[in-house]
């Protein structure tokens, strides 16, 4: 393999030619990027949410309060490390380590730049390029949940246990929707490797072509990272701190770190899969060669920051969902919708690959649209009907012969629960 990498080499070949020391350098770089991103994102989140609440936010430590999270980290590290008597000591210690390591691992397959030169070597800012890169990320994310579940279980306390169980249920439910939303991307890109998915978005971003998948992914990534409004696992109002109630000092800091690195990871995955990764905005393609290709990193992080802002915005706007609503939304809305969407996408894909005439494709699209409209109107009708029946059943209450206080029979918000 030549030292400078040929023109026609794919990213995986480029990375495959890396010498060992370069891999090490990249690994350290990724670690540093993740940690710095965490420190900055905690600061940014607090500042932005503060602005949304007409406050200023942390502005004391360092310029604009930039060092606030560093100071918090130092404070946490210096605090007393408590392990409850009822805790399972070994698991209690291992749990935060699992959480914190897995979140970094997922970042290994994220392509941050196109072809660049690093210490004289032609390579790409991506630690490794697996042919099943996206599946690897999903798998790592699932292992990361072990950290949370084990933390909840090993604490030997009620609130953490509930938080851990919630979190596992949450991640399982939303991972299904997330995986399904990615299937459409795989179908269109014809690959599961992150770098080839980015390459496949040279012309059109999948966020545009596969808009429903994009929306489903964005929703489920919020559910996956335990962020507001889906932060049921650490619902302060309900579970004190959820899975990390019993944790203190550095172990708590590790969970905190893991949470924010996770946010960065899912944001970068969303960028990679749907927003063209390190590619420039359409029409600004010439910027990709600036700084010897390093400018692509700016584009990559601009998009990640966009997603990160979305996280913060959601946190500043929406209240936490009730647990049953959350589950209902995941299983009864997101999953069926993604299943139907995948069927449509795969049909269209097969049609175009088999060279179906254009009018067939258009007819199919219209047919699908018609079916969707018919389905929704039927659904609305059934809902109206049920409402009517509810009212009738309420009217049918037998009037007692004696005077009773005037109580308003309350309809619950979900009217379908009322029995006749």
């Amino acid at each position, binding site marked *: 393999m030549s030292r400078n990498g040929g023109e026609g080499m794919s990213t995986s070949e480029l990375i495959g030619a890396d010498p060992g020391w370069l891999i090490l350098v990249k690994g350290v770089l990724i670690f540093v990027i993740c940690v710095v991103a965490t420190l900055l994102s905690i600061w940014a989140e607090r500042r932005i949410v503060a602005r949304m609440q*007409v406050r200023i936010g942390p502005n004391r430590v360092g310029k604009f309060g930039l060092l606030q999270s560093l100071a918090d980290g130092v404070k946490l590290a210096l605090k007393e490390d408590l392990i409850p008597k009822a805790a399972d000591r070994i698991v209690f210690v291992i749990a935060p380590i699992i959480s914190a390591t897995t979140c970094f691992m997922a970042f290994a397959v994220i392509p941050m730049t196109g072809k660049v030169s690093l210490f004289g070597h032609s390579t790409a800012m991506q630690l490794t390029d697996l042919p099943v890169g996206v599946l690897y990320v999903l798998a790592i994310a699932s292992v990361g949940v072990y950290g949370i579940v084990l933390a909840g279980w090993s604490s030997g306390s009620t609130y953490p246990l509930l938080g851990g169980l919630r979190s596992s249920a949450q991640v399982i439910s939303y991972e299904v929707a997330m995986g399904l939303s990615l299937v459409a991307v795989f179908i269109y890109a014809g690959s599961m490797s992150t770098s080839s998915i980015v390459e496949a978005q040279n012309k059109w971003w999948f966020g545009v072509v596969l808009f429903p998948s994009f929306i489903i992914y964005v929703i489920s990534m919020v559910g996956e990272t335990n962020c507001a409004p889906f932060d049921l696992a650490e619902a302060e109002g309900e579970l004190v701190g959820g899975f990390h109630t019993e944790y203190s000092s550095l172990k708590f800091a590790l969970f905190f770190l893991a949470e924010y690195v996770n946010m960065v990871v899912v944001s970068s995955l969303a960028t990679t899969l749907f927003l063209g990764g390190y590619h420039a905005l359409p029409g600004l393609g010439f910027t990709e060669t600036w700084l010897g290709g390093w400018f692509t990193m700016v584009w990559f992080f601009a998009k990640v920051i966009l997603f990160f802002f979305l996280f913060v915005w959601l946190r500043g*706007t929406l209240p936490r969902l009730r647990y049953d609503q959350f589950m209902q939304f995941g299983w009864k809305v997101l999953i069926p919708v993604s299943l139907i969407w995948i069927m449509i996408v795969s049909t269209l894909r097969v049609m175009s690959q088999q060279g179906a005439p254009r009018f067939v494709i258009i007819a199919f699209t219209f047919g699908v649209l018609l079916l969707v409209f018919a389905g929704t109107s039927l659904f609305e009708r059934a809902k109206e009907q049920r409402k009517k029946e509810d009212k009738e059943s309420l009217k049918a209450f037998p009037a007692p012969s004696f*005077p009773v206080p005037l109580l308003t029979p309350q309809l619950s918000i979900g009217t379908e629960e009322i029995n006749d």
Partner: protein
Amino acid sequence: MTDDFSIEKAVQQSTQIPEQSPASFFTQLKGFWLTFATMFKKVETIPYPEVKPPVAERFHGRHQLNRYEDGLEKCIGCELCAWACPADAILVEAGDNTPDAQFSPGERYGKVYQINYLRCIFCGLCIEACPTRALTMTNEYELADDNRNKLIFDKEDLLAPLRAGMLQPPHPMYPGTTDTSYYKGEVTGTHPSQEVKAPDA
């Protein structure tokens, strides 16, 4: 029970609950717009130690023992403030004015005057009780300290500073006046003879 009461009617009325369908998609988007727009609004936070906005004019802050125009203390040691205090925060011990040491017009003055700010609830009843307007409240509210003893304010801490033309007591009353003239506000400054006596003038 009146005749026009009917369960059927009541039930029918009560079933007419306003529709509670979830808000439309665009109505829900309004919330997002609200938080987004709020980011660019002026923040309500006051950066306190750097910026100290004026408090209300009649804010109940630290107390002050006032003086007459010639520098004599208004406090006559009557202890009415101490009696009025619901938190028992004030300690007053009166002393006799002598011709050699006249601290306030009239017979007596407050020899010991202490307010314990660990007890004071800033209700202002002491101010209402004071017959000579000797005790009033300032707008000063930064009363925190690191020591319990430091929060018991003595007479020196509470006395109003000497303004221009005032003379540090003890000094005799304005010649030819009584405590009533002081009280009526007829004394508007030190007597020229006293002014000459002022050290390093």
